[in-house]
């Protein structure tokens, strides 16, 4: 494709046109420093707009943005000579970006969303998902597209890692209002990716089971009490909210755990005897672990175990 280097006034560049733009959530500080030090090294690529007196960005949106912020009035850019098709221009931008950097999840989503204008799903799955480092499946395609439709604040959280991509995909299936409810919670507390996922899952399951909205679940007094604690850190709040929601999601299991805890406490076991229930109370096999250093420790533990066998609370525990 032929191009010609031309000096263009910056105000004639349509900065809001993102037809060919893939970049999302990139930090411009390094680029700003570079331009301040050595000027513009690589020229942006532009194409004349339909009216002929303005230009659309094909490559170099960040450079244009930085130059504008730095107060430049015009820029030398490469202008495509014979107006190529949009598809050709997009592929030019796509491969140019792909050649020199790793796309973040939102950039991948934007690329795929745009590729859908020009190619069949089958073609994208087969030829383009692998280029983006994604599995060539319809499920991956659907998940990736769903990210592109999210609100900007959520996309930004995905780029910064504050929100796990998988959780964002899950949120994409909700209404905007429900999505914002969960996202607002994640902004108020600190949670690992797996705990974000767990909380989202709990909220969705509770909503489904009890016919509640996500907002109603999170507006619940018990959740709000935790969020309003001034003395707790974000991580402590996150853990507490998680426990509150787990209890709502698994009322019988948590009752069983509490009941086990109460009975165990009443047994007054020494610290070197650890009594554990079956995982999730599935089956009837309890375990007792004895820690010891000496023969005397073992004798003492054996005496404790004997006593425990006569404890009515143990019988109660085993009978469930």
């Amino acid at each position, binding site marked *: 494709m032929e191009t010609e280097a031309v000096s263009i006034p910056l105000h004639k560049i349509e900065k809001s046109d993102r037809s060919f733009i893939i970049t999302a959530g990139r930090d411009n500080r390094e680029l700003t420093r570079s331009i301040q030090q050595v000027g513009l090294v690589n020229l942006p690529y532009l194409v004349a707009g339909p009216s002929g007196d303005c230009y659309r960005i094909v490559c170099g949106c960040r450079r244009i943005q930085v130059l504008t912020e730095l107060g430049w009035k015009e820029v030398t850019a490469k202008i495509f000579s014979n107006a190529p098709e949009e598809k050709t221009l997009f592929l030019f931008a796509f491969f140019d970006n792909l050649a020199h950097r790793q796309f973040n999840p939102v950039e991948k989503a934007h690329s795929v969303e745009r590729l859908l204008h020009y190619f069949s799903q089958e073609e994208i799955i087969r030829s383009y998902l692998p280029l983006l480092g994604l599995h060539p499946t*319809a499920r991956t395609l659907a998940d990736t597209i769903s990210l592109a439709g999210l609100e900007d604040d959520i996309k930004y959280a995905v780029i910064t890692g504050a929100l796990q991509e998988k959780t964002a995909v899950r949120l994409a299936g909700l209404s905007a209002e429900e999505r914002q409810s969960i996202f607002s919670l994640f902004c108020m507390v600190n949670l690992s990716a797996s705990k974000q996922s767990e909380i989202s899952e709990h909220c969705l399951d509770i909503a489904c*089971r009890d016919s509640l909205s996500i907002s109603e679940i999170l507006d619940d007094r018990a959740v709000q009490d935790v969020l309003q604690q001034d003395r707790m850190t974000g991580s402590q709040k996150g853990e507490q909210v998680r426990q509150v929601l787990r209890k709502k999601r698994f009322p019988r299991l948590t009752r069983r755990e509490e009941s086990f805890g109460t009975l165990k406490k009443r047994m007054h076991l020494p610290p070197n005897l650890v009594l554990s229930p079956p995982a999730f109370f599935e089956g009837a096999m309890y375990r007792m672990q004895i820690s010891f250093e000496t023969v005397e420790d073992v004798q003492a533990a054996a005496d404790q175990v004997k006593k425990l066998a006569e404890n009515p609370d143990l019988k109660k525990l085993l009978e469930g």
Partner: protein
Amino acid sequence: MQRFIPEKIFIEESAADLVAAKRVRERCSESSVEIITSAREFIRLSRQKAGAEGALQTGLLLCRNKGRFLEPCPGTKKPYRCCGYAILNSGTGCPLHCTYCVLQAYLNNPFITLYVNHEDMLEELEHFAHLYPDRIMRIGTGEYTDSLALEHLTDFTCSLLPFLRQHQGIVLELKTKTAFIDTLLELDHGGSVLVSWSLNAQEIAASEEHGAAPVHERLAAARSLINKGYRVGFHFDPLIYYPGWQEGYRQTVDLLADSIPPAAIAWISLGSLRFMPPLKNTSLQRFPHTKIYCQEFVSGHDGKMRYLQDIRLEMYTALVAWLRHYSNDIFIYYCMESPTVWKKTLGFAPSNAELQKLLDGRVSPRIAA
């Protein structure tokens, strides 16, 4: 309920001239037909195109089964008990579209598929029967498909009868949620075929078993077959915990008691909803309104999600009491349940071998009702 007629039939080239394939084509004269070179490659490409998960196809694939037709039921891991059932692979996939169906996440093949090389199947069965002449075997076609949902296209049971008549130790269990029994009514089955229905609460049948017959139609079909000398079985599986489950399942047990004489029942099994974790998302993508996955499931010893044991015990205790009230003589067993559950609800916990023997004893010697 509507019988399944595919919009399109895909036939593997090497299977096109087989008797069963021709029969299906004759019976689906309105369906378009495409001959494909390799079923395996066709499935691979279709999965890539439509997505492996949730994209079950409406077409019917006719091909050869290149593997074994007869295999042990995969069952599950210890400590859960299994019954030693054998699966006869007549095909995979099902047109009934139940929300909880494990096949959604289990199969790699999105097409309803029928294996049409019945000659090879009979040869394999003969070989097996020759190797183990005295063995009692319960074989079934209801593991990877519904046993009767496609019978109108294949006459599969009819083609097996000559073999079954010759081998007294082998009983075929047809598991279904349909009422498609017309092809069975006039068969001279000689006690070699046992038909069993999956039963559920009527609300659950309506909301979660989309293409299946209503419960009362299943029971009416069972009644008709009993009148023709068949023994029947029932599987309350999967039991679904939902608000009002007591009333729902009680009504179904009452319907059963009103329709079926206990003496005609070979067995009744109970099993609660259980699934490998990926099924939940796959199913929710296809059936976003189902509520069955939002109850208290925990991971079992076999990695499958199950209701908390307390919930299962509550349900089983109630079901066993209602069934015992209907008849004390009915043989009740659990599918994939723990010894703890067996002991607490039925008072004993057989080993896998003992359970197999108990169930074999229910069909041997062959007894027509």
